[in-house]
């Protein structure tokens, strides 16, 4: 497996369309997220020319995971769609804070649904580490994410320095919260 990173135009040829298709299968078909997407691909207003992607690719070319990095100096998911998760705090707007979204590490050849959702793969920690390193290379000191509560356990177990930005809120039946991931490690 290798991990690629770059903007849509900076990734190797063919990867970005493959990534959009992979995201559709994971988030729309497998996880059932109610997203307004074109047929067969999952893209939204935050997939822009300045958006940076991290992509885990198996040796046979299949995508095994992905994540999306957005600078908080420009519109991003938490600030625009889930500002309530900050409980009145001003959303971060800094070159030192990048948002990680659409993160998943799921083997699509495994047809059985697992309760671990988009975090079931052993690829998860490798990809998350790559995302943090990529963001650090772009000037980030910390990432911020919209996360389910259970992610904290994974982050702690993997040795990441993460903490909450504010209390969790139940959205669509699931407790979500805004989570900071520091670029440094515990």
């Amino acid at each position, binding site marked *: 497996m290798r991990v690629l990173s770059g903007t849509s135009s900076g990734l190797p040829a063919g990867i970005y369309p493959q990534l959009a298709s992979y995201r559709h299968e994971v988030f729309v078909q497998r996880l059932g997220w109610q997203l307004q997407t074109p047929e067969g691909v999952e893209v939204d207003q935050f997939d822009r020319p300045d958006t940076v992607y991290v992509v885990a690719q198996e040796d046979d070319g299949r995508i095994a995971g992905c994540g999306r990095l957005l600078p908080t100096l420009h519109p991003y998911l938490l600030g625009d769609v889930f500002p309530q998760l900050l409980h009145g705090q001003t959303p971060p707007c800094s070159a030192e804070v990048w948002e990680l979204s659409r993160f998943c590490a799921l083997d699509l050849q495994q047809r059985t649904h697992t309760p671990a959702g988009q975090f079931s793969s052993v690829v998860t920690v490798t990809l998350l580490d790559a995302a943090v390193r990529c963001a650090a290379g772009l000037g980030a000191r910390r990432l911020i994410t919209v996360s389910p509560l259970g992610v904290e*356990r*994974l982050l702690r177990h993997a040795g990441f320095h993460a*903490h909450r930005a*504010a*209390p*969790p809120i139940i959205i669509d039946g699931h407790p979500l919260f805004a989570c900071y991931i520091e670029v440094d490690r515990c």
Partner: protein
Amino acid sequence: MSQHSVTHSSSSGVITSISLSADGYIRLRPLLFQATELQHLMSGLDDGVLPRMDSGAAIVGYTEWVSLTNPAITVGWDWQLSAMDGAPGCVRIADPFSNVMFIDEDSRDLGPVRTARLLGEAIDARPWSSTVLAAIAARYS
């Protein structure tokens, strides 16, 4: 470093300040946390979203609490159902998750690991088990 802060009276009557740092942490001394009232927010049984490091068929879950301050302290921890003096009760099974960074007398960070451990000790000194049991019973009965 603070974005904004609020002063309030602790249970000891001392005027204190809780503020939010630019990195998202609320920095305060352990004694102030111990004096800060926490309100139950939500509790639930383990939904199996992620594997836990503990074992077996025990009944486990999570609980979330918040302070009434602004900015709000958020703290949550995993628990396991256990027999306590012959009656069912909840026992914390892992260090809490929070937006708190404890500081020492010189306002130096104690670090995330030590903070989590001290938070756990402070939580264990509070009577939270019956509240969680009642919330679980109301939610799942």
